[in-house]
Structures are given as structure tokens and as C-alpha cells.
């Protein structure tokens, strides 16, 4: 596996928008697995650089626009 990408891009999912089409699992099995109800469990560590293009493809294919790639951590937890 290659080194993390320079911009610190991460895969993020908006769980409210997600309805479990699971196209992300299809297109990016390296970073996405499914729970028993068919919703994606996403690895949110920075993407390895060789996966960034694949990740963007999965983002473009998400029917509910729930998946995205960005540099910000979705939630800064205080605990």
C-alpha cells in the first residue's frame, strides 16, 4: 500500500443521506465494508495516494451524494 496522500484527503459519509445503496462498497472495497444491515463502514484515515482517484469515482457514483472526499475530519469529538 502506498503512502497517505499529501493533502490528507479522507473518505467521509453523511449517515443521514446514506440509504445503503452500497455502490461505494462495490467501487472501493479497500476502504468500505458493510454492516449487517447493508450500511457502509468507512475507514476514515487519510487515503493512500493510489486510492484517491478510485475514491473520487466512488463519490461520483453515490446515488444520494452521501459519500465525499475532503480534507476535514467530519466530526471533531471532544471526548
Amino acid at each position, binding site marked *: 500500500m502506498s503512502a497517505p496522500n499529501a493533502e490528507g484527503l479522507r473518505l467521509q459519509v453523511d*449517515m443521514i*443521506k446514506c440509504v445503503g445503496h452500497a455502490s461505494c462498497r462495490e467501487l472501493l472495497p479497500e476502504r468500505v465494508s458493510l454492516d449487517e*444491515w447493508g450500511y457502509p463502514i468507512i475507514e476514515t484515515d487519510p487515503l493512500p495516494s493510489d486510492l484517491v482517484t478510485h475514491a473520487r469515482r466512488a463519490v461520483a457514483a453515490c446515488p444520494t451524494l452521501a459519500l465525499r472526499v475532503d480534507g476535514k475530519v*467530519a466530526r471533531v469529538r471532544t*471526548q
Partner: protein
Amino acid sequence: MTIMMERGAARGGGQGRQGLLLPRLLAGGRKLAEHRATFGQLPLRRFTGEEGRRKLIRAVTDAGLRGRGGAGFPTGLKMASVAAGAKRPVVIANGCESEPASRKDKMLMVCAPHLVLDGAVLAAHAVGADRVYLCIERGTSVADRLEREIAQRDDPVKWKVVRVPRRYVSSEESALVHLINDGDGRPMTAPPRPYEKGVGGRPTLVDNVETLAHVALIATYGPEWFRQVGTREDPGSTLVTVGGAVARPNVYEISPGMRLGEVLDAAGGVVEPIGAVLVGGYFGTWVSMPDGWGMPLSHDRTGPQGTSLGGGGIVALPAESCGLAETARVVRYLAEESAQQCGPCMFGLPAIAQDLAAVAYGRCDPATRQRLSRRIAQVTRRGACRHPDGATKLAMSALTTFAADLETHMSGWTCTGVSRDPILPLPSRQHRDRTWK
């Protein structure tokens, strides 16, 4: 309603400058005149101008005040972030208290309404807001009372009392913003968090009503006075709701650092042998007794399972009751209270509740037990809000604290505790709203 109060473990050393040690929050009266006689005028004049605002935020920061709604986040830090926004901020005073095991906020709003209102005005002044939304659960007379009290005051802010649906997740901060903006009391995805972009797209300070009451006291008496009780990391007094098998279940003002056993004694002591105590309400943890008797309570995650005071709900469970059955009931309630927005919460919580019921009512085999652990791990941290995390934390804590009971249940022994009357309070159907509007 009589309110009993006990002096906490006296860490402050002697009486405060104003002669107040505890009670602090409940020292004033219900009426404006009584309140002013005790606490004096709103100390806005000491904090005029830009410099004054900064001074007020600094006072709250120096006091070390932490949020009393559950998360225990440093209030001064939150105020500074809101004040630093580009647009004029808004303040939300959160008095919803949807937690069934807690009634300290309702009690505070009834017994010391003007302290809460003073705190909200001061917080609004500190961050530069001119509008305060006071959010209260509908279906009680508290909102009407506060509207009447507000009408008697002459405040430099615009007040709006918002009546919030009686649903567990509607008191979450993004849900309040959602309700005010769009009339929908369901939590939203973060970011943006309300302190960045909240009501009308403005930076929004969402603070629990007890937190705001402490802000009023800090502005009046100063940070050193505030620190005279409590611990270094968690100063000041705090309200707790003590229930279950104690002689005088009620709301008490304690100082953090006080031991769990002392708090139970303050509530008149236990009325029968107890097996465990739930600390921190329904997003809290079970503490096994008598081992936990000497555990100091604070908003820090002390204790072996990260036990913290949270919103201050404390329930003593008799040794004769079944902690697994109690937890199964509450987790089922929490599953029903899901906003049904995120898959893991919508499907995961009912599944976990069902497994817990199987464990509690003796239909459990090792496979169910394993599935339960896997589901708990799978659901945690996968919602837009923390509702699933709170529910799984409670479930996990029950499996750990009642591990011995779990063995008994799994080996097929009949547990007599499951047929006892439930101890953990749940709202009846007619006190739960079905709408999000």
C-alpha cells in the same frame, strides 16, 4: 417541591466571600424581586464595550466552568469560538432535558428562573448576540412560567421561548438549530457545528440552562469565588437528580469530587441493599456497589468505564432488581427514540435492544451474546449525532458491570429480579410526542 441540599465535601475551605458556599444556584427566589435582593442587579455595567465582553469570557474561562448538559465541554472556550465568528451570533438556552432520569433543569427553571435568564443575557452580551432562544420541552407549564417571568424583565436582548417536541434526541444541539430554522426537531449532520453555523447561518452558542445560571454567578462573584468548591479540573457546584432506592429522591446541589456514597447519603441514604448505581443518566454507565461507594463524581471521565456525571442523573438500583432487564428496557426506549435517519441507529439499536432482552429474559445462548458484542461495536460512532453511542455505552456498561448476572442468566437460572417493578424511569406514552414539528 422541597429541595434538599447538602454541603459538599468542603474543598473551598470556609465560607465564600459573599457568605455563600452551597447552595449557590438555589439561593435566590422564584420572583424577580427576591432574586434581585439576593444577587443584585444584572452586572452588565462591569462588562461594557468590546473590552468588557472579552473580560466576561475570560472570567468564565478562568472559572473553569464546564457544560452541565452532559458533555462537560469548557464553556469559556465555546463562547470564545462563537464570539470569533464573522456574523452576529445567536444564543440558545437549552432547557429541554429530555433525559427521563433527570429533572434538575426543570427544577432550576422553576426555582431560580431569573438566574437562568440573567445567565443567558450575560452570555449573549459576552458573544455579542442580541437574540436568545429559550428551548423548553412542551407539555409542561415551565415554558408558560418563563414567558411570564421574561415579560417582567427589561433585557437588552430579544427573547423567544421555543417549545420543543418531547423526544429524546430533540434536545441535541443541532436538533434545536434544525427546529428553529426549519421546524424539524431532528439532529443534523456535523460539520458545520452550531458554534460555526447555526440559527439563520449564524454562529450559535448552545448552552444548558444550568451552565448559564453558573455564568450569571461567575459574572457576579468572580472566578475565584466559583472555584471555592469542586475540584481543580471541574470547579463549581453542580445539580444532580438522585433517584431509585434512596430515602429522599430529589435534585441536589453538590460539588464535583464528592463521592458517590456521599451523594446517596445526601439523598437520605439507600432504603435497601443496592447492587449498582447508574451514573450520568441513560447515556451513562453502571457502577457496581459497594465497590463504587468511594468513587469521586465529576464531569471528567473517571472510574473504570469512563464514568462521568454527564447530565447529573443518578439512579440507585436495588440488589434484588435485575440490571440487565433494566438496561434492556431503557435501550428499547432509546431505540424507539431514534430519529430514524441513520441506518446503524435505525436498525442497530432495535437489534441490540432485542438481544439485550434475550439476555435478560433467559433466552440467551453464547451465539446471541457474541452477536450482541459485535453489534454494539458496529453501531458505535456511526450516527450523525451521538444517540447510538450513548445507547451502546449503556449496553456495554451493563454487560461489564452485571457480568456475573449474565453468567447466571446464560446458564439457565431463573432471575427473580426481572419480575420486580422497574426502577429506571421512562416517560409514559402520552408524555412522548410522535411528531418532530
